[in-house]
C-alpha cells in the first residue's frame, strides 16, 4: 500500500492507505482521530468537516492522497488539551449542541469562517454553515454561539488562525 504524509493538529504522521481511501478514513481508522464523524459519507452532511491547509473540506469525499503533504486541523486541534477554544466555549454556553454528532463539523466550519471574516453577519454565518446539517437542535443557537465567539475573539484579540489558541 502506498504511504502518505500528513500534519494533523500540529503533529506529523506517515501512514499507509488504499489509493481510494478518504481523508476521513485515514484520520479515524489509521490515526484514531475520531473528532470528524462519518455521517452520510457522500459529502452532504458536513459532520466530517476538517481544515485542509486552512480550507474547509468534507474529509469523507476528499481522497486521502490529495491531502498528501498537507496540514489538517480537526476539532481536536482547536485548543490545547484541557482547554476550550472560544467557539467551543460559546457552543457550550449557548446550548449550540444537543446530540453533538454534527458539532465537530459545525465548529470547524465556524472556524473557517472566523479565520477569514472575524465579524460575520447572521447571513454570512448561515452561508458558512450551509454544508453542515444538524438534525436535533436547529441552527439558531449554533448561530448565536458563533456570533458570541466572534465577539469574544474580536474583543480579546484572540489568535484564532494559528494553532496556538488560548
Amino acid at each position: 500500500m502506498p504511504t502518505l504524509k500528513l500534519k494533523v493538529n500540529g503533529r506529523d504522521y506517515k501512514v499507509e492507505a488504499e489509493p481510494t481511501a478518504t481523508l476521513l478514513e485515514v484520520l479515524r481508522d489509521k490515526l484514531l482521530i475520531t473528532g470528524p464523524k462519518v455521517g452520510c459519507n457522500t459529502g452532504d452532511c458536513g459532520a466530517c468537516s476538517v481544515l485542509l491547509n486552512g480550507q474547509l473540506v468534507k474529509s469523507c469525499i476528499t481522497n486521502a492522497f490529495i491531502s498528501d503533504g498537507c496540514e489538517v486541523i480537526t476539532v481536536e486541534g482547536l485548543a490545547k488539551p484541557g482547554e476550550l477554544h472560544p467557539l467551543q466555549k460559546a457552543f457550550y454556553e449557548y446550548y449550540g449542541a444537543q446530540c453533538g454528532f454534527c458539532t465537530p463539523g459545525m465548529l470547524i466550519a465556524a472556524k473557517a469562517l472566523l479565520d477569514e471574516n472575524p465579524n460575520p453577519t447572521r447571513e454570512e454565518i448561515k452561508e458558512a454553515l450551509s454544508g453542515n446539517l444538524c438534525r436535533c437542535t436547529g441552527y439558531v443557537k449554533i448561530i448565536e454561539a458563533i456570533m458570541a465567539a466572534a465577539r469574544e475573539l474580536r474583543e480579546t484579540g484572540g489568535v484564532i488562525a494559528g494553532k496556538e489558541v488560548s
Partner: protein
Amino acid sequence: MANTLFYRAADLKEACALMAQYERRARILAGGTDLMVAINRRLLLPEVLVYIGNCGLDYIRVEGKSLIIGAMTNHDSILRSALVKEKAPLLVEATRHIGSPSIRNMGTIGGNLVNASPAADAGTALLALGAKLNLVSVSGVRQVKVEEFFTGPGKTVLKPGEILQEVLIPPQNENSRWAWYKLGKRKSDICSVISVAISLEIEGNLCRYARIALGAVAPVPLLAKRAGSLLERQKIDKTLIAKAAKAASEETTPIDDVRATAWYRRKVSENLVKRLLSQILE
C-alpha cells in the same frame, strides 16, 4: 479488495501519457467531490486514479478576448475571481449555488463538466455563454463546443486517453444581458430540480443572438436552440417571450425522479424562461 493504482501526475504531459497507457481503466481525479462519492457508494472502483492537481491546470486568464479557465480551477476561485465577474458574471452567479463552501473549495469546473450530470450548473451556464472546451491527449488538443460535449447522463465526447484541459468563454460585449435561476429543494448542497441560464445580445431593439440553456430537464444540460432562434433578429415583446418560453419547454425531455415529475419540470421550464426573459428585458 482494492488494487487501485494512484498516480500524482507531475505535469499535463505525464497525465496524458498515463491516460494513453491506461485508457478506459483510468479515471482522472480532480477535486473528487463526485468521484469519491461514487467510490464510497461502491458504484465504481477504478483500476487507476490519475490525480491532476499538480498539472498547472488551476488558472483564470484572458487570452485574446476570451476568458480561459483551467479545468482544475475550483468553484470557490471562480466565485472570488474579479476577472470572471467582469467577463462572465453569469458563471459567477451559477457557481454561487453549486454545493456549499466546502464543496466549492474542492470541486472543480472541469469535474462539474466531465461528470456530465444533466443538472451540472456550470454546464448550463457555459452553454448559455457559448463556451468551448479544449480536450488534450498525447495526440494533441482538439476543441469542442460545450453543446457538443455532453452525450448522455455521465457521458461525454471525451475519448479514452483524453483529458479536459480548459474552458474558453468568448467575450461578451456591452449589449450582452444575462439571467440565471436555480430551482432546488434547499439553497445549498442540492442538485438542481431545474436550472435556467440565458444570455442575449440586444442592439437597438433587436435581439442579435439568444442562448437559452436548461439543466436537469433532459439527458444532458440542454441548449434550447429553437427557443433561442425564435428571438434572434426580432424585436422581443411579451408575445414573443411567451412563444420562446413555450418552445424551450417543448425542447425539454425530462424524467420523473425523486426531485420532481417530468410534468412539473416542463411546466416550470416554461415559466422560468418566461420570467428570466422578462427580467432581462425590463
